């Protein structure tokens, strides 16, 4: 062994000389390598800690076992250790080769930086209510959109379910503050307004999500902020770090949370007998014994199904038209930087297969974020991204699947698809899969910025943002079965271009304990949209698919276009004295093209105050580390849809006519809406009072919020008597009040060497109420009149249900009101006149909105293992969170109910099932009632278990960090709601149109149901 190290003296001398030469010529001073291990207070290694040699561009990060190795280059090197959530440390090397610091946990409140719109602020200095998402907690869930990672985890933020591949979830903040105004929060990505699908953003690219909830925080985005603001910041490279390459990926399989199936043969035949119980069963037996003389030919079954009864058919349409759902995500990113330039480059691929056959979705995303300091006074940068989404083929909709029955087959004897399998014009759902389809949505984002600092004016900066967002929508289809099998094809092309230009002047200085920040913004946002659709029907063949539409016998073209513009100015001042007394004041002026001529602009002021009591000398309460009271007051606006103030004259196809045989099309036009020359901004004015605290040596921290806001000049489509020729008009009226209470509590009950347990609980409750509508008291009862036609009631919530009260189902021998039959709802006849009328027999039944919601996040770490579990719940209290739950689908008439199917959770009334809870929907009654149920649920929404490789093991595969994980989504749901998942919500209305404008959650309905999915996934995260 020794022999190996024996060098010839000459050679040794040469090597030494060479090294000295290199050192002298290259670095001017000797290099040394410092190694070490960074630990937390519990003695656990801290991976990912930034280690930088102060004043240089050299730096590194710690490995999974907290170890690092860095060559220092300066004469008196000082190392800076920093990590999010820990207090940074500077340590002079002093010729030591090993430095192993322990980083102290930072007060989460104090130094966390949040994005506040046109800048950032330290959390401790905030005066408003801003919630920051814990993205780490949901990193292991197979989520396609960032929205799914926020679901239930932030108080006051409500995210809807998604149940189709690539579907965009709904989002709302702190309840409903508008009637017909825009209800979506404003989405800002990297400082630029983002229109459209958030699922165009790769969740792996997102660095932070901050949600602005209170009037003063939102005020910087005054005009569109009434529904809250979601600020998304994408990742950037870190200065002076060697390139880091990260791969993360997961694979998930899914199946519906509700294992409902369409009826199969025996149950289906039983249903038909029950529909015909008057003849299929004997009267003497009370319709419980089969009438031997009755056959299925006596039902309304079409001959093909009657033949199917005889043939013993039992075809599983549902089974063959659904598939194993799955999700795959793959992301690769490279980030790093020199001392002047940072970069982050990433690529992502997502492939989702939905539950219904062919419901496939794929997304490719790319991103390059780069910034560089060009000179001392100029920094330029760009956030660019592309998202390319493919919705692939046509999938059959649930309606067409339910519109089949097990007695008929999809193919004829020679194997060809039967176009109308049940013999009516319900089209074979398999045919959708035969369509040729190309549906692609592409988005290109180029946000460029320059920051100018004036050396002689310290603290001053000017930033110019120039945002460009270009979207392409292409939807091309062709179907040989379309247009009654004459063939149909269409090309639908649309583009949208959004442009934002912001001039941001900022001045930040500290004079002693006085800290001041002044921001002024001047900018605009414009959107332009164009669509052209060309379609044709009647093709001799479709071998050229949608690419030769001129071959259609009937050709049709249409086009549309719109544009809108927003212009704004903002002034904002924040001041604090020693981070103890905080003030922030903002005034924003907005103009939007969609309002009437004289009301295009609005001014929205706000002010916020904060007092950090724990900073006061007199504050000496033991175990309270931090305590702040803050309050804010301000006004925000809500804009209206473009062109809402203008009267429209439309030229629709329905207005066209052809005079004479063989004549040409005559174009018809008519006035379709009324103008409102007074249409103006909807304004929400409110207060927010909050308390932030940290106690027990920062082991427990949290915040409590109370808010109360009033929205006036509500944008509202007022219902008109159609006697006037118009059904509604856009107007400003009334007032809505929202009050709410939220808290978020975080604690670390266990924190030992090996084991730690973190819990975060959030809770939100919102109450809204209509304060005023028209301000009229026409019936002179001293109380303002309700606007019943529009479903608005003074003093009651927006989602109030004013409808008939269902009191069970009429049995055979019950005495019934005229026109009602056994198996229909028994509706309470309030005025006892023997008739059910909308005028006299409706009553208040409750409301549709949740009473409160909560989420509980648990994280348990033991050694290399981390277990996370998230529980989410929405509750309706006494009689809120109600929704109608009635069987709805292909069963409006006995014929439809006989020939098409429904799901096995439909527990309908029949003489043999007198306790059935659902009415017979094929029976007409004088007043169609609906029964309302609560949708309360508690859900184990996300669970994950991850294992991080130890450094040693990671190194053997050449990685710095490596983590494998398994996770589950929607594993358990506790609810009394019948049918599909309680969160499956849609704007589906029962036959006869929207009653009170209340959405019907799907429940036991059969059509349009796309089930909520439960999934299991496996994933890997690796960094080199």
């Amino acid at each position: 062994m020794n022999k190996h190290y024996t060098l010839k003296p000459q050679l040794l001398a040469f090597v030494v000389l060479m090294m000295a030469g290199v050192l002298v010529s290259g670095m001017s001073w000797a290099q040394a390598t410092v190694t070490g291990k960074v630990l937390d207070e519990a003695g656990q290694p801290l991976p990912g800690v930034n280690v930088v040699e102060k004043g240089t561009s050299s730096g590194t990060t710690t490995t999974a076992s907290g170890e690092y190795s860095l060559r220092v280059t300066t004469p008196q090197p000082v190392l800076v250790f920093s990590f999010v959530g820990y207090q940074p440390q500077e340590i002079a090397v002093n010729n030591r080769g090993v430095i192993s610091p322990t980083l102290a946990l930072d007060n989460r409140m104090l130094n966390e930086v949040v994005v506040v719109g046109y800048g950032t602020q330290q959390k401790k200095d905030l005066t408003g209510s801003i919630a920051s998402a814990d993205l780490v907690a949901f990193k292991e869930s197979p989520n396609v959109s960032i929205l799914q990672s926020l679901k239930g985890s932030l108080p006051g933020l409500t995210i809807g379910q998604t149940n189709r591949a690539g579907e965009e979830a709904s989002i709302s903040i702190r309840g409903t503050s508008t009637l017909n105004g825009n209800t979506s929060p404003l989405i800002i990505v990297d400082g630029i307004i983002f229109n459209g699908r958030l699922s165009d953003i790769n969740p792996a690219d997102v660095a932070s999500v901050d949600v602005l909830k209170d009037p003063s925080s939102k005020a910087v985005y005054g005009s569109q902020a009434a529904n809250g603001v979601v600020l998304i910041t994408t990742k950037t490279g870190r200065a002076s770090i060697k390139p880091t390459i990260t791969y993360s990926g997961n694979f998930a399989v899914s199946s519906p949370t509700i294992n409902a199936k369409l009826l199969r043969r025996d149950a289906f035949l039983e249903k038909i007998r029950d529909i015909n119980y008057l003849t299929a069963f004997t009267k003497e037996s009370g319709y419980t014994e089969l009438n031997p003389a009755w056959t299925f030919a006596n039902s309304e079954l079409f001959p093909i199904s009657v033949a199917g009864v005889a043939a013993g058919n039992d075809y599983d349409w549902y089974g063959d038209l659904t598939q194993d759902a799955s999700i795959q995500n793959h992301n690769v990113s490279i980030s790093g930087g020199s001392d002047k330039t940072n970069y982050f480059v990433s690529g992502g691929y997502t492939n989702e297969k939905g539950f219904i056959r062919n419901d496939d979705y794929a997304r490719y995303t790319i991103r390059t974020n780069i910034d560089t300091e060009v000179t001392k006074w100029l920094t330029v940068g760009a956030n660019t991204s592309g998202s390319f989404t493919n919705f692939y083929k046509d999938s059959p909709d649930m309606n067409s699947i339910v519109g089949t029955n097990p007695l008929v087959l999809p193919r004829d004897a020679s194997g060809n698809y039967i176009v109308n399998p049940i013999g009516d014009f319900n089209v074979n759902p398999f045919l959708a899969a035969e369509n040729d389809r190309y549906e692609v949505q592409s988005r290109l984002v180029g946000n460029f910025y320059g920051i100018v600092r004036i050396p002689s004016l310290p603290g001053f900066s000017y930033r110019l943002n120039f945002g460009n967002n270009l979207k392409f929508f292409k939807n091309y289809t062709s179907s040989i079965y379309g247009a009654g099998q004459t063939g149909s094809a269409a090309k639908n092309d649309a583009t949208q271009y959004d442009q934002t230009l912001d001039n941001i002047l900022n001045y930040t200085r500290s004079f002693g304990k006085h800290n001041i920040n002044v921001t002024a913004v001047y900018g605009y946002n414009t959107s332009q949209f164009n669509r052209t659709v060309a379609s044709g029907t009647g093709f001799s063949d479709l071998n050229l698919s949608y690419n030769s539409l001129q071959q259609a016998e009937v050709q049709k073209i249409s086009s549309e276009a719109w544009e809108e513009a927003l212009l704004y100015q903002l002034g904002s001042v924040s001041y604090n004295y020693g981070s103890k007394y905080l003030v922030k004041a903002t005034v924003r002026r907005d103009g939007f093209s969609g309002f009437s001529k004289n009301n295009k602009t609005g001014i929205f002021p706000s002010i916020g105050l904060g007092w950090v009591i724990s900073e006061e000398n007199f504050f000496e309460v033991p175990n309270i580390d931090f305590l702040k009271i803050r309050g804010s007051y301000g006004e925000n606006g809500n804009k209206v849809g473009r062109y809402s103030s203008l009267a429209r004259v439309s030229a629709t196809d329905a207005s066209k006519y052809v005079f004479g045989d063989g004549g040409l099309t005559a174009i018809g036009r008519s006035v379709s809406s009324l103008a409102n020359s007074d249409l103006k901004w909807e304004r929400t004015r409110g207060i927010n009072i909050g308390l932030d605290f940290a106690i027990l040596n920062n082991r427990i921290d949290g915040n409590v919020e109370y808010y109360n806001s009033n929205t006036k000049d509500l944008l509202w489509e007022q219902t008109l008597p159609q006697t006037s020729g118009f059904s509604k008009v856009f107007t400003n009226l009334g007032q809505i009040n929202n009050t709410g209470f939220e808290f978020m509590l975080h604690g670390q009950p266990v924190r030992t060497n090996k084991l730690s347990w973190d819990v975060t609980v959030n809770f939100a409750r919102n109450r809204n109420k209509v304060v005023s509508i028209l301000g009229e008291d026409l019936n002179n009862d001293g109380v303002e009149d309700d606007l019943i036609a529009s479903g608005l009631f003074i003093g009651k919530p927006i989602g109030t249900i004013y409808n008939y009260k269902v009191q069970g189902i009429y049995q055979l021998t019950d005495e019934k009101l005229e026109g009602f039959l056994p198996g229909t709802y028994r509706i309470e006849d309030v005025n006892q006149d023997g008739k059910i009328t909308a005028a006299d027999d409706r009553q208040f039944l409750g409301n549709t909105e949740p009473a409160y919601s909560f989420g509980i996040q648990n994280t348990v770490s033991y050694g290399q293992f981390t277990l996370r579990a998230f529980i989410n719940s929405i509750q309706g209290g006494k009689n809120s969170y109600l929704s109608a739950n009635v069987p709805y689908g292909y069963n409006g008439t006995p014929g439809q109910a006989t020939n098409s199917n429904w799901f096995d959770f439909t527990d309908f009334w029949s003489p043999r099932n007198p306790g059935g809870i659902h009415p017979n929907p094929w029976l007409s009654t004088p007043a169609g009632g609906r029964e309302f149920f609560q949708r309360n649920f508690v859900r184990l929404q996300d669970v994950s278990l991850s294992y991080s490789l130890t450094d040693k093991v990671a190194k053997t595969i050449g990685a710095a960090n490596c983590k494998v994980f398994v996770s589950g989504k929607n594993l358990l749901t506790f609810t009394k709601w019948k049918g599909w998942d309680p969160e499956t919500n849609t704007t589906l209305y029962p036959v006869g149109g929207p009653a009170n404008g209340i959405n019907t959650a799907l429940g036991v309905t059969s059509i349009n149901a796309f089930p909520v999915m439960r999934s299991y996934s496996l994933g890997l995260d690796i960094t080199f």
Partner: protein
Amino acid sequence: MKANKFIIALLAGVMLSQAGCKEEEFLNEVPLDFYSPENSFITEGNFNAALTDLYARVRATQSVDPGANQYSEVLGTDIAFNARLDQSRLGNYTVSLTPQGDIPQQHWIRWYKIISNANTIIARVGTSQLTEAQKKLIGAEAKLFRAYAYFKLVHLYGGVPLILNEVSSPQSNFTRATKEQVLQQIVADASDAAANLPAINAVKDGKLSKPVANHVLAETYLSLKDYDKAIAAATEVIENSNLKLMTERFGSLRSQPGDVFYDLFRVGNQNRKSGNMESIWVIQYELDVIGGVLTSSGSSMNNLERGVAPAVFSLVDPGGKAAMLDNASASTLNSGGRGVSFVRPSDYWTYDIWGLDPKKDNRKLDASVTDIRTSPFNIVRDFVYTNPASPNYVGKSLIDFPAPNWIAASWRWYPFPSKITTPGQHPAGVVQDAAKQTLKASAGATFRDMYMIRLPETILLRAEAYLMKGNTAQAAADINLIRNRAKAKPVTPAEVTLDYILDERARELIFEEDRRVTLSRMGKLVERVKKYNPLNAPNIQDFHALFPIPFSEIEANKDAKLEQNPGY
């Protein structure tokens, strides 16, 4: 410091260049793909487009689309009832005619939208720069639409709000006018139209003309019991308008077996250009042209065939095999096209008005009751099995070999008038196999133009006016104009009563006239439903003579009370 100055100058430059644009200009809103009322009622072309919209809207209300009207013009009257015998589709008056129900609401909002659009035209003609002649002509056409809409409304609901001005701001203070006021307004508008509209041979096919106005006047004067004026207006149509009853074979199928009554309802035979001299107002349909509504791929409008023809494709022969060749409907008289049996003619129409006994075999009719309107071309009274895969029954009559599922469910087949369908003339797109004449499930539309007003109706209006004046001889003479053409036995003056006129209307005009409005106008709805409609007789009550005012209208009309009709 040089650099500083440079930067500041640069900054100032950038900001100034942006501030240069005017805020007002920047936020000005210009619609890109729709018009405004201000720029839409200027030229003659603009006004013609506005009138075209009215034609399209009337077509939509007339088009028996099942979603809205639910065939309420005929269902629940004396001539037809819900074939499926259940409560829906006016099977039960208590269920279907409620203030919150669809039927009253659809009729109301559709006719009032037509009134609203007509009012806009009438108001804007006045301030336009059209010539006086153009103003008169366009105004007259719009007024006739308004008159027609009020005529429907006043007979369906009684006195209704009378709105004669353009509504350009939200209004919710409507009150009901009296029936008399509404009728007088119709007279005023229709008189204006009668004075200013061109003759029928001077307008394009499908357009309103002078005889339409006079027909509406005649019928309105009947409601006002002003029989002389009714006779005068009807006479203007019958004798002075270049109209005459067709007595010889004509049109697209004239060389094929049939008769002149059959010809009236074949494809392409309704417009005056086809040689049809008795059509007064024809609702225009055109195949595969935008604005023509009918398409080869199947149409959601004009579904008379689908609604009225029996669902013969659902029959199974006594041997248990499908009754039809390929298990499909066919473009034949035997099949009646692609029906689904919603609307079934009552026995009153099928037998009583022809003097037939439903219990007897009516396949071959007695010569004494023969009338071309009862010929096998015009009323299909038999069904013949056509499935060759069932050799025992193919070619046999359903009546001789009843299908078991027909015995159990009579809706699968019943006699029907052939005017609802277009045998042999279905477009290729809905035909499954041309050689076999089989139809796809997408068939069901009636692929021809539809009569809104045909001369026999005007003649029967005049007969009614004569009768009401006590002049039964003239009344009989008028009715016999129609009966002679039909080669029916003439009626004697002594036989003429209101009921006889209603019978004659049923014989001649089933599925053309708005039967509900006719009965309502005569005050005969309840009486005759009780007499002739077995499904609705038990559930119709006196107050059902009028529709309820839609509750949605009463509720939204917050600034005044819209009185509900009694009984609801």
